[in-house]
């Protein structure tokens, strides 16, 4: 463990408040943990207000209300108002399910800054299949209402093998809906996406073609729509600088109050993640075992510890290293310098074989029944 010197630790800037794991959708690439069904308890309104107050005092300013579906929390407007009073710039990350014009206005009045609506595909059939819920028309309606009510509208589409062929239509849809920002998030293989990887991971050719289309579109809409393209790191040869470095910038609070350096970190063994019901955010951020675990560089193994790029990517993602190699201290296998790098090609080959198989196994949808079955 490194970085326990308090003066060297930068304060949190981004807070992700996962208000609940409850969600009416069943997306098979959900970033929630596979075993989410066993975490039934949710923080109270007062707990969340305390967390927001404490993190803001330390310097957190970007706030995402997420889940699950955060709209299932009845106290959302109250939390939004509290966040606005504290000076947060707040974002509702929603499926749009259950969002009415009345609610959109109510949240605006409470001080919400922007709304990020997810759409699963460019056609009703595929969207509703992936979401596991009939929701396409309503999502489009919500996107219109978000614009109408003066919010910056952020459209988020998660990209994978089932929808990557729709890239031109997805871009057209974003333009038609008047998105101010479009997040094209290539699936990151954690949680449910990890379990469904053989069915979701596109081929390299599919990635390259889709990326080309997206880049051309980016130039076309420059000045009108901002595109955030989340890279598919299985086809990179260097890992992402995950979370801008462990415990440097991002703080996630899970529905039950567990504080995490990233939203997947509760899957890592032996971190003893602290709970906001037991400690203040300041204690958690500066003093907890969890947040100091991968701070700095002392925890690294070769090839990371002597690598001249370690200050750029911090050895990549700890959760990905653990999920793919079983060793959370290892270099992210995405890195071509990692001895585990062949695991990535194996995953790509396995997904391709699955795509070509006569009877491909079905997607595992994210719901409580499957969560209990798998954990």
């Amino acid at each position, binding site marked *: 463990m490194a970085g326990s010197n308090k003066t060297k630790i930068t*304060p949190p*800037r981004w807070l992700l408040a996962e208000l609940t794991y409850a969600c009416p959708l069943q997306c098979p690439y959900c970033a929630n943990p596979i075993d989410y069904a066993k975490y039934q308890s949710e923080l109270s309104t007062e707990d969340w207000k305390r967390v927001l107050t404490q993190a803001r*005092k*330390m*310097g957190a*300013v*970007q706030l995402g209300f997420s889940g699950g579906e955060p709209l299932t929390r009845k106290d959302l407007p109250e939390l939004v108002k509290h966040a606005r009073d504290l*000076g947060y*710039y707040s*974002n509702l990350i929603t499926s749009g399910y259950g969002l009415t014009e009345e609610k959109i206005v109510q949240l605006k009045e409470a001080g919400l*800054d*922007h709304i*990020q609506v997810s759409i699963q595909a460019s056609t009703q059939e595929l969207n509703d299949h992936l979401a596991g819920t009939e929701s396409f028309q309503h999502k489009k309606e919500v996107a219109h209402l978000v614009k109408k009510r*003066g919010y*910056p509208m*952020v459209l988020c589409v998660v990209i994978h093998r089932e929808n990557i062929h729709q890239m031109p239509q997805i871009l057209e849809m974003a333009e038609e809906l008047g998105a*101010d*920002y479009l*997040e094209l998030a290539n699936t990151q293989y954690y949680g449910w996406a990890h379990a469904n990887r053989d069915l979701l991971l596109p081929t390299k050719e599919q990635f390259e073609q889709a990326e080309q289309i997206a880049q051309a579109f980016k130039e076309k809409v420059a*000045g009108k729509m*901002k595109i*955030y393209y989340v890279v598919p790191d299985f086809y990179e040869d260097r890992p992402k600088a995950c979370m801008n470095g462990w415990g440097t910038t991002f703080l996630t609070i899970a529905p039950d109050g567990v504080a995490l350096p990233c939203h997947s970190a509760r899957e890592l063994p032996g971190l003893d993640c602290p709970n906001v019901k037991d400690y203040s955010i300041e204690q958690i951020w500066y003093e907890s075992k969890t947040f100091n675990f991968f701070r700095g560089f002392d925890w690294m193994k070769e090839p990371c510890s002597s690598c001249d790029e370690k200050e750029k990517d911090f050895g990549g993602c700890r959760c990905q290293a653990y999920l793919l190699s079983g060793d959370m201290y290892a270099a992210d296998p995405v890195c071509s310098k990692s001895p585990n790098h062949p695991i990535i090609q194996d995953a790509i080959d396995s997904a391709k074989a699955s795509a070509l198989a006569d009877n491909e196994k079905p997607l595992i949808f994210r719901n409580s029944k499957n969560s209990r079955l798998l954990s």
Partner: protein
Amino acid sequence: MSINLDQTIKFSPMHRLQWEEAQQKDVILYPEGMVELNQSSAEILKCCDGTRNLAQIVNDLEQKFATTGLTNDITAFLEVALKNGWIQQN
């Protein structure tokens, strides 16, 4: 993209400009992002209130800081701001 000299300039309603106590600086906030501003950039943006055009902003800032010759620097910064969508005209 360049600044129209006749039209007034206002800060974009799709962004927020605010002082951050913890960072001791002004920042621009927008979906998924934050830009940290130095003092002079922040002073210029605070003048973009929809009542002043470029010449008036230059004049007001030159008076405020008892100096002259700010036209080029302010114009250059506002062009960057316009390109990034931080300000609007009309």
